[in-house]
């Protein structure tokens, strides 16, 4: 015999000092922050207080451009389109939503961030990335 058992619990995850700076920059200044690793020089986006690759410290936050190239994308029917965007100035790609029908997208396409009207200090303050005219690879 089966019985359904709901679990309904609220959680709140600390973004930490650097994570908070990234989210506040989205909210207040529509800026996207990365961080540069002092050991391997890679620019991580979103900004992180350490470099996942070599474990080095990343004290220096840098501005990353709100536009870049599409590294990959996928459409989940009924849930929208997701993409990985290599933003100008970052060595890593940002995973985010893509705004537009699936026919729009191709690897290498030039895309730009569109910020939400209502911004609350969340990664969703970027509504998604849209194709730039003439941005065809």
């Amino acid at each position, binding site marked *: *015999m*089966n*019985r*359904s*058992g*709901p*679990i*309904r*619990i*609220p*959680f*709140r*995850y*600390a*973004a*930490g*000092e650097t*994570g*908070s*700076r990234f*989210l*506040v920059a989205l909210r207040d200044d529509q800026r996207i922050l990365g961080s540069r690793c002092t050991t391997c020089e890679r620019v991580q986006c979103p900004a992180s207080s350490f470099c996942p690759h070599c474990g080095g410290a990343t004290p220096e936050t840098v501005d990353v451009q709100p536009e870049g190239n599409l590294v990959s994308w996928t459409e989940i029917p009924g849930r929208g389109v997701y993409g990985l965007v290599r933003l100008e100035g970052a060595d890593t790609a940002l995973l985010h939503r893509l705004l537009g029908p699936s026919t729009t997208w191709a690897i290498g396409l030039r895309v730009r961030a569109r910020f939400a009207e209502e911004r609350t*200090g*969340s990664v969703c303050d970027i509504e998604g990335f849209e194709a730039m005219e003439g941005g065809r690879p």
Partner: protein
Amino acid sequence: MTERLTVPLTMDLSWQYASGAAMERFCNGLQARRIEALRCGGCGRRYLPPRPMCGDCRLRLTQWVPVGDEGRLEAWTIVHLPILDGRTGETRPSPYGMGLIRLDGADTTLNHFLVESEPARLRIGLRVKAVWRKELLGAMDDILHFEVLP
């Protein structure tokens, strides 16, 4: 000092739990106010809740024995701290009484609510009895709580 942000995410999912054969029979029994335990052929221990195997003897449990809905209060407490009920997301009203009850015919105890929440009137060794809800659904909360017998 930069602002410290936190990201709120609420988990709201539901699992389909399988009872297993032994627990299914136990739950059906509750619907008829019948409580049954499984007795181990090795050590003779009468287990509540019923389960596939005795952990000590590592033998499958197959022998059902009847258990009463009265028993001995082995331990009690009055919980004052409100706890968020994980199933509803609401906070459970407190204070509430809780006890470990060894039902007549079982060798393990059952942790359940006590209607009594006055420490002075609770003592280990008291006889307690289950209070069943009107409409029995075949689940442990068919027993609302235990009351202290006079």
